[in-house]
């Protein structure tokens, strides 16, 4: 989809190349994160793709077409561009901002209106309340969402994002990252994403390109980079806690047990007790008839309180979402002092459960590979 070939850039008046002989292929539908210390050439590389910076030598092909052969402004209209400072136009409303590229492409007004509504829905911004607002009336997170919507307006197959979530607070950043990953599943763009934060790279990237002093050091999947760092630089860069970082990559749904026992609210007391005792358990998860998680009951409290209205003794239990990472699970374990959690989907339907042993087994298995 995007192919960089022997790409180099030396800025005028500088002896050393900012980017040196870079070769890279980004597959369609993938997020490729460019990461490295400041001055490593990652932003220069990104900006050469939409020709905000002209390469000194080498070629860039998008779908096999050399970008140097296209008119700059026309090339850029087919590539979404998001920057850290967002750069929304302060004199235009949310709607006008989002409509920028469609207007440049001379879309019909009706098509533009529909597209704006569609995008606002996609980024989760209430259209009626926000469409006529000016950027300074929005929060930082909302501005960044509008920035992303604006970049996607003409449905470009490629998006370039230069530290897009760098200027917001950590909580908003995590929200925006998760939201963007969910969005990417729907829109399936080819994305080049620059960051200096290795954790963000691991979280967002299908592939990670690690650069230093203008050169490609390692280009691989996050998992391989964490488990097989190419050299000492990569090892240092990803940090001593790389085993912990692996936890970021593994999702609960990959290792949860989906074969487990639970009871339904409508079960009667005796069959419930029988079920628990048969399996030699001390407790059981309870769901409603449509499999929505209700909580859990312990054998002890059931036996103590007798058989009438056993549903009254259901206790609440924190659940994890299926797309949470193992790091989230550990967090929850430390916070709530549970070692086992039910796993639910976005609608709170029970899918499985996960405990410390599952995680331990999975990780030791991964590393034996």
């Amino acid at each position: 989809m995007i192919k960089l070939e022997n790409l180099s850039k030396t800025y005028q008046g500088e002896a050393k190349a900012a980017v040196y002989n870079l070769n890279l292929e980004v597959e369609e539908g993938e997020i490729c994160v460019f990461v490295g210390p400041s001055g490593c050439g990652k932003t220069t590389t990104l900006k050469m793709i939409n020709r905000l910076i002209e390469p000194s030598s080498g070629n860039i092909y998008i779908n096999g077409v050399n970008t140097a052969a296209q008119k700059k402004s026309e090339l850029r209209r087919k590539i979404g561009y998001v920057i850290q400072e967002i750069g929304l136009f302060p004199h235009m409303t949310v709607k006008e901002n989002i409509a920028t590229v469609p207007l440049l492409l001379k879309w019909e007004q009706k098509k533009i209106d529909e597209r704006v509504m569609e995008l606002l829905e996609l980024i989760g911004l209430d259209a009626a309340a926000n469409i006529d607002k000016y950027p300074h009336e929005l929060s930082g997170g909302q501005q960044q969402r509008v920035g992303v919507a604006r970049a996607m307006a003409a449905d470009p197959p490629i998006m370039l994002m230069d530290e897009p979530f760098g200027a917001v607070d950590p909580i908003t950043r995590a929200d925006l990252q998760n939201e963007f990953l969910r969005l990417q599943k729907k829109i399936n763009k080819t994305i080049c994403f620059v960051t200096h934060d290795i954790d963000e790279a691991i979280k967002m990237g299908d592939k990670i390109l690690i650069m230093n002093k203008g050169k490609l050091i390692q280009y691989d999947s996050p998992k391989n980079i964490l488990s097989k760092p190419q050299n000492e630089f990569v090892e240092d860069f990803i940090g001593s806690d790389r085993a912990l970082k692996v936890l970021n990559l593994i999702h609960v749904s990959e290792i949860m047990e989906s074969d487990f026992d639970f009871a339904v609210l409508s079960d009667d007391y005796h069959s419930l007790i029988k079920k628990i005792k048969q399996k030699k358990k001390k407790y059981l998860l309870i769901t409603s008839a449509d499999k929505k998680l209700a909580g859990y009951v312990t054998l002890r409290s059931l036996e103590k309180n007798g058989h009438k209205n056993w549903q009254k003794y259901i206790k609440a239990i924190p659940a994890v979402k299926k797309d949470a990472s193992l790091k989230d699970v550990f967090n929850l374990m430390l916070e709530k002092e549970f070692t086992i959690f039910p796993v639910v989907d976005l609608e709170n339907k029970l899918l499985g459960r996960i405990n410390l042993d599952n995680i331990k087994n999975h990780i030791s298995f991964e590393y034996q590979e």
Partner: protein
Amino acid sequence: MSVINYFISNIDNIIDYTFAHLYLLLISIILSLFLWLSLGIIIRNKSKTAKTLIAFGSFIMAVPSISLYGILMTIPAFGLNIRSAVFALVLYSMIPILRNVYTALNGVNPAIIESARGMGMTERQILWKVQLPLALPVIIAGVRVALVMMVGIATLAVFIGERNLGQLIYQGIVRTRTEMIITGAILVSSISVSVDILMGFLEKKFLSPGVLKSLNLGRDQ
């Protein structure tokens, strides 16, 4: 009372003077706006040229207007003519307009320009759709100062043969006729104030609420 009497008995002269004054202003304003706005846009990316021109404009500002009129008068092509007066007024308006256009266009947040370029706007589209609308408050402020100043300086053009409202003030001083001075002063200031009000109106009409509101926010902080 004598002011009103004077006004009524000399109404024909006063109307002539007012029209002469407005005529001089109109020509000078049109020329100044055209010249300095376009020059400001042309030199927006040429910092060396801009600095030289702005230094020249500041120098002109430092020359007392009476002596500038005097100097222009001695130049054959100008002489005792409305051309000298127009030329002087246009020169005086250079600094407030040109400097504000240049600084305002260059003061637009580079991130905004970069995102405009990154989305595929041509340099011309960036200028018209992004830079100018954002620079407009500062440009209008400059034009406002220039216009109000021109109304005042135009009165001094009587020394090089213009017969405008300055005539009332000048003659009033020479003949110690207070009512003449006051009549002239009132009319000149009314023109100034009207110009100022008109510019305020245009500012409200042409500035995007987004720019206005963010300016107000800045002021509150």
